[in-house]
């Protein structure tokens, strides 16, 4: 049966190519859509993902890591002595407006870390380093944001909220969901730049002792500070991602375009299999006259759709690998995990199976008597 299924398919190049194009199109579209979405989500939780805190303590009404709300720094004392806590540090994520040398304005995030640990501070330095951020007024910026800040050089001054700051380090790959530049610095400099009231900060970052029972510690902190929200990095990342997904509707638009991609793929595969079956009606009639039953017809059409699914998937995966390699950029990161690829290949196979139903129903109606009468 396989040689009949396969040769019939390959001797009809046009239909084969339509089917393959459908599979490749679906697979690539869905993966790129998914990859862009995951890339955006990664940006939405960027600060959380790159911070090595074990727990985040935030204002009860926190919605998103970028939108820090002030909490009294003095509360920190209530959790410092808790069993399992190694240390707790205040952390500031605030907003400011930078004034460029040319007079233009640019909104920026100001992120301040405890100077001793620099927990939650910048990474990926290409000029300067974390130590430079201790210098007076010292802040880091990312190379993606250089144009927004007037293409400054290291050592240049920048005014933020009327405060003088100095650009002492440059990083690569730090860009968030809102695409406002992140300026990383120490707690004190950040407080001044972001106009955070004295004795306030945005978050407490908790480092637990090695081997500490985190869920228990989380509950203990909640009990001590009922006015706060205590989350693991995973929970907080999720909260920040859900915020953008729901607020912007990107979840729906990505979902809709993905579904559309799958639908178009389904139609292309279905149409090519159907046209192929129609072209070979007389062959199927002959097979039936020779004693083929439904199961034989099913296996032929199924083998054809499987061939299209498998070879289309191979090509599609190669294209996806190339896109991942050459297209992804810090501004539009394409994050395609193997799980996503595997899942879409499974979906493709399901779709191809579904697409073989239509030609099967058509072939089922063919009367073998036509072979003799025809």
């Amino acid at each position, binding site marked *: 049966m396989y040689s*009949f299924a396969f*040769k019939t398919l*390959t001797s009809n190049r046009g239909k084969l190519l339509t089917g393959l194009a459908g599979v490749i199109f679906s697979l690539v579209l869905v993966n790129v859509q998914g990859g862009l979405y995951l890339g955006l989500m990664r940006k939405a939780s960027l600060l959380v993902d790159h911070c090595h805190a074990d727990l985040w303590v935030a204002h009860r009404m926190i919605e998103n890591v970028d939108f820090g709300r002030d909490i009294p720094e003095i509360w920190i004392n209530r959790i410092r002595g808790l069993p399992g806590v190694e240390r707790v540090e205040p952390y500031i994520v605030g907003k400011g407006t930078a004034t460029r040398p040319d007079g233009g304005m640019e909104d920026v995030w100001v992120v301040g870390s405890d100077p001793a640990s620099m927990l939650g501070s910048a990474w990926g330095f290409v000029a300067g380093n974390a130590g430079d951020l201790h210098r007076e007024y010292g802040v880091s910026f990312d190379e993606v944001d250089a144009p927004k800040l007037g293409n400054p050089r290291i050592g240049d001054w920048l005014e933020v909220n009327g405060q003088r700051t100095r650009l002492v380090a440059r990083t690569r790959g730090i860009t968030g969901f809102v695409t406002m530049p992140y300026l990383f610095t120490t707690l004190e400099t950040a407080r001044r730049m972001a106009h955070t009231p004295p004795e306030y900060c945005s978050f407490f970052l908790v480092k637990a002792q090695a081997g500490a029972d985190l869920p228990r510690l989380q509950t203990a902190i909640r009990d001590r500070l009922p006015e706060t929200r205590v989350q693991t990095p995973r929970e907080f990342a999720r909260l920040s991602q859900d915020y953008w997904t729901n607020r912007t509707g990107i979840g729906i638009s990505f979902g809709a375009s993905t579904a559309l991609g799958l639908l178009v793929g389904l139609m292309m595969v279905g149409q090519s299999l159907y046209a192929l079956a129609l072209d070979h009606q007389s062959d199927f009639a*002959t097979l039936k006259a*020779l*004693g083929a039953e439904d199961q034989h017809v099913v296996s032929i059409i199924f083998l054809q759709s499987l061939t299209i699914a498998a070879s289309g998937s191979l090509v599609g995966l190669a294209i996806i690998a190339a896109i991942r390699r050459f297209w992804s950029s810090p501004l539009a990161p394409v994050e395609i995990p193997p799980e996503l690829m595997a899942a879409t290949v499974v979906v493709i196979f399901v779709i191809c199976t579904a697409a073989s139903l239509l030609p099967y129903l058509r072939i089922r109606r063919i009367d073998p*008597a036509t072979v003799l009468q025809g």
Partner: protein
Amino acid sequence: MADFIVEAAGLCKAYHSDAVSTPVLRDVALAVPGGECLFLVGPSGSGKTTLLSILGCVLSPDSGHIEILGENVAGFSPADQARFRREKVGFVFQRFHLFDALSAVENVQVAFDLLKWPRVRSRAKSLELLALVGLADKAASRVTRLSMGQRQRVALARALAGDPALILADEPTASLDAESGLNAMRVLKELCQSLEKTVIVVTHDSRIFDLADRILTLADGRIAGTGPAAGSSANAPSPPALNTRLIA
């Protein structure tokens, strides 16, 4: 082997379209002994193909009794009919109905595929059958590259796949010129004789009447005449030394 491979009596068949019923077979009776080469002749529209279709379990009669190889095929379900066609009947169609995308040997193999033979075995067997019909050197050729006569022989090899007891051929020479028609029919007749197949051939072609053991004439849906063929047995060519051991 049963005395009669085919025994039928009172066969009736009508085609229905738009509440009009056209009777095609009226009270046909038929008995075909094992190993016979029977020709069905008659004017166009007399019901030859319809009768052959019933004998091949492609159509069911409206009424009447028909037993083939000891099975009462009149009462068969479509699934039974398909099974019977796969296992017991070999068809040679007028326009061959080979699979154009496939090679000669793959065309034969399809019949074995339907019988769920393992690939290696079915390939070897298909090559043997092609050798029997004299096409060993064309096994790998796509059938569209073969001459009409060669295609007819591929069709014959396919009909013999799975060793069916009954071979049915509808106008096997109609698509061939006089010489290759006669040749193809000779191969069919001789092979089937040496393999002890029962053969029923529908034909208009009086040039091959010589090859029949018996000729039945259908007219207007009834058996109008019967008798041994004009030049049967006595001057029929003797079977060549075919290697019958090849056929399981």
